[in-house]
């Protein structure tokens, strides 16, 4: 019965299906087909026999990873960096969107928006290069500023204490404006009559935000939060890798960079895929739990 109904929609809405076809194909080719390589994590990779030919090793590589002396450090660093990025980085675009929404002069608002979007388009390599130059205690402008206000001689990129704040703050600076777009879109769907009537009732700006804007944003916030939970262990590889140096390595070595060092540099393909798979598994558990909680609490959920 239901299949018949589904086929009916295909027939009826074939234009829509056609339009979505390229997207489906992309997802299938790039996200589903490679999944077959996952079995590499359970096998001893043998080049001459291909992906599926190696000897079956079961959970050997997972065990090797969990027993590895780096395991606890890697997990801690990955969690810390991801959590810090989410907890501090997540609210930032919401606040920015609420602020931008309050700006009345259109020209000024547009200019503001463009300014905060721009950093998003800087490539990671260039960005890290800029960080290196700006934060250098000898020659950088931030280094000089810190010296001027009496913070002394600190190399922000070369200390295990300052690495995470530097990472998170530079991340917010880069992406906050861009991420606020979606919230601005949500805000633009608020019925203007609501604002008008709230003004008549004597609401001030703060109250408009509190009682109109914020509730309008809530579903978007929840969905995006669930999505970001799924990425809790997949911290951005490139930026961390580029920012790594011997001095911040105790806090900057995360699962992604370790997988790279093992898999690509040391040719331990099976081991690296086991670590990668482990990482994905934990992401999935997080995503699923957050989704379940949110469904119970607020009736908003992904699935």
């Amino acid at each position, binding site marked *: 019965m239901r299949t018949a109904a589904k086929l009916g929609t295909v027939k009826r809405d074939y234009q829509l299906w056609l339009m979505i076809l*390229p*997207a489906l194909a*992309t997802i299938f080719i*790039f996200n589903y087909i490679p999944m077959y390589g996952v079995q590499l994590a359970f096998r001893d*990779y*043998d*080049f*001459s026999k291909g992906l599926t030919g190696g000897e079956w090793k079961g959970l050997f590589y997972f065990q090797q990873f969990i027993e*590895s*002396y*780096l395991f606890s450090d890697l997990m801690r660093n990955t969690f810390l960096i991801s959590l810090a990025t989410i907890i501090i980085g997540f609210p930032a675009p919401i606040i920015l969107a609420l602020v931008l929404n309050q700006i009345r002069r259109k020209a000024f608002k547009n200019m503001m928006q463009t300014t905060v979007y721009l950093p998003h388009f800087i490539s990671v390599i260039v960005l890290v290069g800029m960080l*290196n130059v700006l934060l*250098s*205690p*000898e020659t950088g402008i931030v280094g000089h500023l810190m010296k001027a206000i009496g913070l002394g*001689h600190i*190399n922000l*990129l*070369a200390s*295990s204490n300052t690495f995470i704040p530097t990472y998170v703050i530079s991340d917010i600076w880069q992406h906050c404006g861009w991420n606020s*777009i*979606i919230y*601005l*879109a949500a805000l*633009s*769907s608020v019925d203007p009559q609501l604002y008008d009537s709230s003004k008549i009732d004597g609401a001030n700006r703060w109250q408009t935000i509190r009682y109109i804007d914020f509730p309008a944003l809530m579903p978007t916030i929840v969905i995006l939060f669930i999505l970001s939970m799924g990425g809790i262990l997949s911290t951005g590889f490139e930026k961390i890798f580029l920012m790594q*140096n*011997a*001095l911040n*390595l*105790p806090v900057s*070595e995360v699962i992604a960079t370790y997988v790279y*060092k*093992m*898999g*690509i*540099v*040391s*040719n*331990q*393909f099976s*081991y690296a895929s086991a670590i990668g798979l482990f990482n994905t598994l934990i992401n999935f558990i997080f995503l699923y739990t957050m989704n379940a909680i949110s469904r119970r609490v607020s009736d908003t959920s992904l699935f």
Partner: protein
Amino acid sequence: MKKQIITMLSLLVAGTTLLAACSGSNEGSASDPGGSAGQSGSKVKLTGVIVKHPLTKPLAEMEWLQQIEEAAGVDIQWQEITADWGQKKGTMLASGDVPDLFVGPNVITDADFAQFKGLFQDMSELIEGAPNVQKMFEEKPETKQISTQRDGQIYGLAKYQRFWPDTVNRQYINQTWLDNLGLEMPTTWDELYDVLVAFKEKDANGNGDPNDEIPMDWSGGIGGFFNPAVLLGGMGIKLSSDVSGQGYFVEDGKVKNFLTDARYKELVMFLNKLYKAGLINPEVFTHDYTKLQAVARGEGDIAKVGFTWGWVASDRFGEQLAPQYASMSPLKSSSSYSGPVSWSYDSYTLNYGANNIVMSAKTKNKEAAMRFINELYKPEIGIQVLFGSIGPNIEDKGNGSYAVLPPKDAKMDPGTWKWTSTWADNGAFYISDSIDLTLGKDMQEVLTQSEPLKEALAQVDSQIDIYPGTFVKYTNEDNNAMSLNNTNIMNLANTTFAKWVTKGGIEAEWDAYVKESQKAGLDKNVEIMQKYYDEFVSKL
């Protein structure tokens, strides 16, 4: 407003999808037009990858290379790689889409041969058609040993470059600064400390600014070339860069690792003392190579760095400042130390190389590829691969004697010119001991600046005191185990070393660190290497 945003969003989504789709397939296709054109005088088309120095000019402009391609009847389409080969290699090999020839220093490692079975050509039979390679094997049996796997296959050919000194590292101090301040050349660590303090506190370079001197600098990290690990020689540790990059060395017939040795602890404490006193460049662990190089080259006649390590003075400090620096003898760890002092012995690493040219098993015309390799290993070609073409770079003086010419551009140092003109040390070649070649100024400089180290190096028995890393062939299993362990060991060593030098705390953390290193597999690796060392020594 709403509409605008939605339009914009959908455009963006479409844009990113397109981008994602494109970036998925950026792997260049190494097309193989095939060796089918081998007959009737027309040239055989081959493909090759070369890992070359970023300065090196395009291969198409190298006269000697055009000549031997002509002589071998091949036309090689080269892919020239100057950076990140280690990363590119993994993906290239895993895809199986490989060129016919690979050239570079250890361009494909023994570990890769083990991992990618069947991808590379066993050349042991083809060598019959390569008299020049055979000649090298006869004249220098070591090269055969280096090229041959445990089971007798030859996947990669060695190189021999003959002229290189016994060590990679030379230790430099600014003699002008010593003279300016009326100081003696230091001979122990403590004296070095005092000298560096004087460099820092007084205006050693005499430009009126007492704060712009950097007493000591190196390129960060521990182990490998040009860094403080060589100071361990002051306590009698005989290093060899074959394996000392990961801390291994041999002492009294036992393979050991200095990373968990009490003497290393002493060294780190000394470096921490220097760092605390502000004698080491504060950016030592974060600056990159270009910056390191730029700092040491100072400003005009004003030097900035007092004490450091390098290959030759002209390369490390530039032609203008090089005369200010003196090459030093190894320093004793303390005035009370009475044992022998040593230095890093790297003759094997410098003069021999493993797997400098490798052939793919998929090559359609293997004979043609071998013809090319044979041409490459001709003695008269060898010097050109190393120093540049006869004509612009090398003078042919007749009677089989040659001389390396000075750079055409007077501003360029000879070392840089060599790297610019030809494959240089990254090539695959053989220079027979019988060929008569007068070296260039830079090589003579290296040999002169190695003089102060001669005494220390002379007491190294290269056969017993040095781990024969260049000659040893591991089994697949050992190779894999060692590479995994070494990645972990160095991860730990690099972070703790940087931390201990800059912040101290080694005394409190030492025991835990030694335990961690063992967990990371250090003992296992020492055990494996001991096995191979014993086997090697027993055959002497």
